[in-house]
C-alpha cells in the first residue's frame, strides 16, 4: 500500500514537474530550446579547448573531456532542479506549505518533480553526445559500448545525484534566495573534483583525496568505461601514466566503490534533510518568502 501511494505521489509530482518545465511555450519551441541549449553550453568548453590546443579534437583526451562535460549536465541540472523545487514552491508559487502539510512522502514529491528534470536533461545529454560524435570526432563506437556497465552506472550515478539534491533541498528550507548559489557552488566543486574535465590525478593530493570520497568521481569513471572503453585504454597508453588514477582498478571494483559512496551519501543526505526539516519547523521557515 505504501509503495503504491509513493509511486502515485511520484507520478503526480512528475506530471506537475513536466507542466512546470514544458508548459510555458509551444512544443516546437520547447524542442528547439531543448536541443540548442545543451549544445550551446557545450560549445563554450569546446571553443576554449580548440583555442588552447590549436584545433585538435580527434584525440583521446578531447573525447574524455567531452563525455565528462556532457554527463556533468546531469549533476548541474539535477542539483539545481531539486533545490529549485523548494525555492519555487515556497517563494514563487507559494504552495510549499500546502504541499508540505499534505499526508504524502515528501521525498517522493521532490523526486517526482526532479524526475522530469532528469528526463529533459537525458535528452540534452544524448543530443550533446550525438553532436560530439557527428561534428567533433568524439570517439564513441556503438559496437564497443559496454551497455550493462553503462546502464548500471547511469542508474547508480543518477541516484547519487538525486540523493545529493535531497540534502540540498533540505538546506533550501533554511536558506533564502542564496540557495541557488549554494547548489551552483556545490556543482562547481563536483566539476573540479570529480574528474569531469580535469583528471583527478592533476589535483593537489588533498583535493584528490576528497575526489576519491565523492560518488560522482566513480560515476564519471564508470560511465566513460562503459561508453568509450577504447578512449580510456588509449588515454592510459598514450600518456604513459595513470591519468585517471584508476586504470588498474577493475570495473567491478569501480562499481563497488560507486555503490558504497552512494550508500554513504544516501545516509548523509537523509540525515541532513531531516535535520534541516526539523530546524525549519523549529524556526518557522517552511513558508517564509524572501525573494519575490
Amino acid at each position, binding site marked *: 500500500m505504501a509503495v503504491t501511494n509513493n509511486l502515485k505521489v511520484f507520478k503526480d509530482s512528475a506530471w506537475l514537474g513536466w*507542466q*512546470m518545465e514544458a508548459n510555458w511555450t509551444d512544443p516546437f519551441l520547447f524542442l528547439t530550446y531543448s536541443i540548442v541549449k545543451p549544445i550551446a553550453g557545450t560549445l563554450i568548453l569546446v571553443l576554449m579547448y580548440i583555442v588552447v590546443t590549436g584545433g585538435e579534437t580527434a584525440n583521446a583526451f578531447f573525447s574524455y573531456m567531452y563525455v565528462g562535460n556532457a554527463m556533468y549536465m546531469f549533476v548541474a541540472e539535477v542539483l539545481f532542479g531539486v533545490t529549485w523545487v523548494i525555492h519555487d514552491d515556497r517563494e514563487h508559487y*507559494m504552495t510549499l506549505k*500546502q504541499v508540505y502539510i499534505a499526508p504524502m512522502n515528501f521525498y517522493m514529491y521532490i523526486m517526482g518533480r526532479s524526475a522530469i528534470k532528469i528526463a529533459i536533461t537525458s535528452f540534452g545529454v544524448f543530443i550533446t553526445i550525438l553532436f560530439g560524435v557527428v561534428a567533433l570526432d568524439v570517439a564513441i563506437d556503438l559496437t564497443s559500448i559496454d551497455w550493462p556497465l553503462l546502464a548500471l552506472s547511469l542508474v547508480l550515478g543518477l541516484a547519487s545525484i538525486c540523493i545529493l539534491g535531497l540534502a540540498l533541498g533540505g538546506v533550501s528550507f533554511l536558506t533564502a534566495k542564496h540557495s541557488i548559489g549554494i547548489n551552483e557552488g556545490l556543482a562547481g566543486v563536483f566539476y573540479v573534483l570529480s574528474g569531469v574535465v580535469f583528471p583527478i590525478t592533476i589535483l593537489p593530493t588533498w583535493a584528490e583525496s576528497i575526489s576519491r570520497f565523492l560518488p560522482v568521481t566513480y560515476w564519471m569513471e564508470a560511465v566513460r568505461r562503459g561508453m568509450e572503453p577504447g578512449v580510456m585504454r588509449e588515454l592510459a597508453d598514450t600518456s604513459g601514466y595513470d591519468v585517471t588514477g584508476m586504470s588498474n582498478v577493475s570495473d567491478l571494483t569501480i562499481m563497488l566503490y560507486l555503490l558504497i559512496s552512494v550508500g554513504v551519501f544516501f545516509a548523509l543526505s537523509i540525515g541532513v534533510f531531516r535535520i534541516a526539516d*526539523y530546524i525549519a*519547523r523549529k524556526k518557522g521557515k517552511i513558508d517564509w518568502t524572501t525573494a519575490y
Partner: protein
Amino acid sequence: MPHAVETQSLTRIFRPKKKKEGSVVTALDSVDLRIERGELFGVLGPNGAGKTTLLKILSTLLLPTSGKAYVAGLDVEKDLTAVRERINMVSGGEISGYGLLTVRENLWMFSQFYGIKSKEAHARIEELLARFGLSSKAKAKVRTLSTGERQKMNVIRGFVTNPEIVFLDEPTLGLDVNAARAVRDFVMDWVQSDRNRTVLLTTHYMMEADELCDRIAIIDGGKILACDTPNNLKKTVKMNTTLTLSVYGLGGINGFDNIPGLNSYTSYKDVESGTTKLRFVLEDESCVSEIVSEVVSKGSRIMSLQKTEPTLEDVFIKLVGRGLA
C-alpha cells in the same frame, strides 16, 4: 473520542537572530484550548495576537517552544502524517497556486496528494467550483485569475480533500462582500452537515466571529483572555442596553420618569423636521413596551426604533482595553 483540538500550556517564542532585528516575541503564551468535534470555533484577535502561529503549530508547519498540541488526539510534533491525513488549512489573502496549471488541474493535483481517488476528486471539484461560482473558470490558468478568484480556489482546495478538521486563517481577508458571504455560508453548511467536522477559524472581523462561531476565544499578546459562546461573552460586559426612538409630534417627556427599569433618558428635538430623538438607557429590557406605550399615548408617531446591545467589540475592549482595529 478525543477532542478535535487540544492544547496544553502551548507556548511559542520567536527570538531574533540579532538584537538589532528586534526583541523576543512571545507569540503564544501558555495557551490552553479544547475544541470539540463538530464545533465551529473562532479565535478572535488583532494582528500579531498569535492566531496564525497557533494554526501553524496545529497544522504541523511550526514547532512549539513548549507545551503540547493535539489534533484529533494526535501529537502534532510526533504523529505528523496521521495529523496531516485529518486536516487541511486555508489562509486568507492567499494567492498561491501553480499559475501554469488550470484551476481544475491545480485542485485535482492537491487532491491526489491526499490520496483521493481521481474520479471522486473530479466530482468534488466540480461541485465546489459550482458552489463558489467558479465553474466557468475551471479551464482557466491559475495565473489569469483575479485575487479574489484565487482565494476562492484556495478555499476549495482546503475542502476538496474532505478533512475532519479545517484550519481557516482569516479566510475572508480581502474578499468582496459577496465572495466573503459565499465563503461564510459554505463554511457554516460544511460544518453543520456532519457532526464529525470541525472548523477552527481565526479572524479579526467581529461580525464574522459572532455570526459563524459556536464558541470564540479572544486572544491578545499570545494569551487567551476569554473563551465562551458569543452570547455568554457579551453577557460579561456590564453595559446597559440602549433604546433609541425617533418620534414625530411628541408633546412632552414628563411621563417617562416613573417607568420602572428605565435608568435615564435624553431627548433632542429637530425643529426643522419636527422629530424628536429619544435615547433611553435601560436597566431592565422589559420596560421597552412601557416606553413605547407612553410615546403612543401622547399621540406621537414612532418613525424608527433601534435597540443597542453589547457587541463582541465591547467584550474585546473590556478585556484588552482597546479596540480591535
